[in-house]
């Protein structure tokens, strides 16, 4: 079985734990850099006209790429078996769906918001990926799943 494990900051350890429980699977660890993160920095600079320093672009890029490498390496170590590491850059939800081509299972984490259990409990990117993934999906909580008592009473 081929699986893709989508890693995002803050919630990836839960995905790696879930992947460890699928010992036979051939795993790809995936992380996507959102270009809007860099745009938030360089766009704000553009607003300063000539007072913005131009060289920040490359600094931001190298920081984000370095962080991606570190995260993938750390996750590979936590997985404890050989895995393919895939770092992408682009519109996050679309890159994840594209990376799932030809795989059997996608492992991803919820964002962790326990305050809105229900149809809107997933963040925008997670929701999109769950809806459009071309394979089976294993959706895990980054922390403990909610207790049964959080179930709203039947209408």
């Amino acid at each position, binding site marked *: 079985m081929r699986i893709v494990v989508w890693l995002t900051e803050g919630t990836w350890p839960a995905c790696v734990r879930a992947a460890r429980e699928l010992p036979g699977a051939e795993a790809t660890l995936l992380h996507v850099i959102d270009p809007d993160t860099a745009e938030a920095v360089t766009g704000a600079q*553009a*607003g300063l006209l000539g007072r913005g320093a131009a060289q*920040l672009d490359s600094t931001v890029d190298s920081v984000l790429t370095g962080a991606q490498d570190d995260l993938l390496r750390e996750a590979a170590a936590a997985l404890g078996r050989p895995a393919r590491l895939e770092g992408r850059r682009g*519109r996050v939800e679309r890159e994840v769906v594209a990376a799932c081509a030809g795989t059997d299972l996608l492992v991803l984490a919820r964002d962790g918001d326990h305050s809105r259990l229900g149809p809107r409990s997933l963040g925008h990117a997670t929701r999109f990926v769950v809806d459009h993934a071309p394979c089976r999906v294993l959706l895990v909580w980054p922390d403990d799943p909610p207790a049964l008592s959080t179930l709203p009473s039947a209408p």
Partner: protein
Amino acid sequence: MAHTVVPVLVLVAVLAFAVARPRGLPEVAAAVPGAALLLAAGLVSWHAAARELSALGPTVGFLAAVLVLAHLADDAGVFAYAGALAGRISRGSPRRLLGVVFVIASVVTATLSLDATVVLLTPVVLAAAVRAGIRARPHLYATGHLANSASLPLPVSNLTNLLAFPATGLTFAGFAGLMTLPWLAAAGTEYLLFRWFFRADLAAPARQSPTPPAVAVPRYALTVLALTLLGFGLAGPLGADPAWVAVGGALALAAVRLVRHPVTEGVRLLRAANLPFCGFVFALGIVVLAVRSGGLGGLVAALVPDRPSPAGLLAAAVLGAVLANLLNNLPATLMLVPLVAHSPGLVLAVLLGVNIGPNLTYVGSLANLLWRQILHARDHPPLAWDFLRLGALTVAGCLLAGVAALWLGLTLSGVS
């Protein structure tokens, strides 16, 4: 007719050049010829131009001194310290980091100007988020937004404030007194909207991250900055121009190195003062003067409210925000402030508009936004609607909250 059309065309050309920066040339390269053309064509009188330049002189000097001050504070480790502090207090939690970033970015913008937040604080916030293993998106959007919406409380917080400050007729402390409440209202509104907008990113549980390396407290630099701030407030009553206080603060920070390496250090300080940009402000002043004296000035003047009633304040703020997005907030300020100079309340309302407004497009103006879309079309997916949705949401919220707070302050203090 030429009186109306030619200055507008020159202004558009100057701003288009500033946005596109062909061959990386500074914006002054188009602004000075533009101003010269208008003078030569007799669309601005030499006398009026000279008066405009002498009025802008102290403001531009103040700007240069504040730019140098922020640069020296960075050299002294103030921003690295802020980043380390943010990392330590957040303890791996995205929500706590957002709270700390809001406080630090609001204070840095207020005291060292929005330039310091964008150029010097943002990279530090990015590093802090990355080190703690936190999604950096909300925190970087936050510094970008606060650089605008938190640039209200002091004349030094934004170049627009410096340009409008003489027209208010207020003292430095008087300006701060009236604008502190709108500052808190705008930053508070921004915070609540960010918590809601980025709830998914911020919901990630806190992770145990390695303790950030200890950074020494830059005591000397922080003391100098605190005294400089105090000096801004005291300068007016003592009859001194607050710009000299900024120069004094910069000299106090630069003194040791300036004595050791007078030439290299002097050159570095001059570079930090960004003289080409200062030249741009002078030239832009003349171009906008020509636009204002032409037909367009009359049109805008007809839109300007004449009384600082709640509706008048809101109208002035909205007009400021719209013009800031159409042009850029510097020409918008130069255009609007003389038209509302009869009422300090309206000048401050215009400042709310031109300072908060640029968050709508987040790059300062529509032209800039279009240009970046063209530039990025090849190597970058089209910009997510996120930026624009967040911009529309926060600009509307912050303007309403800011205007309400300003009206309250004006009513309580009896200023109109």
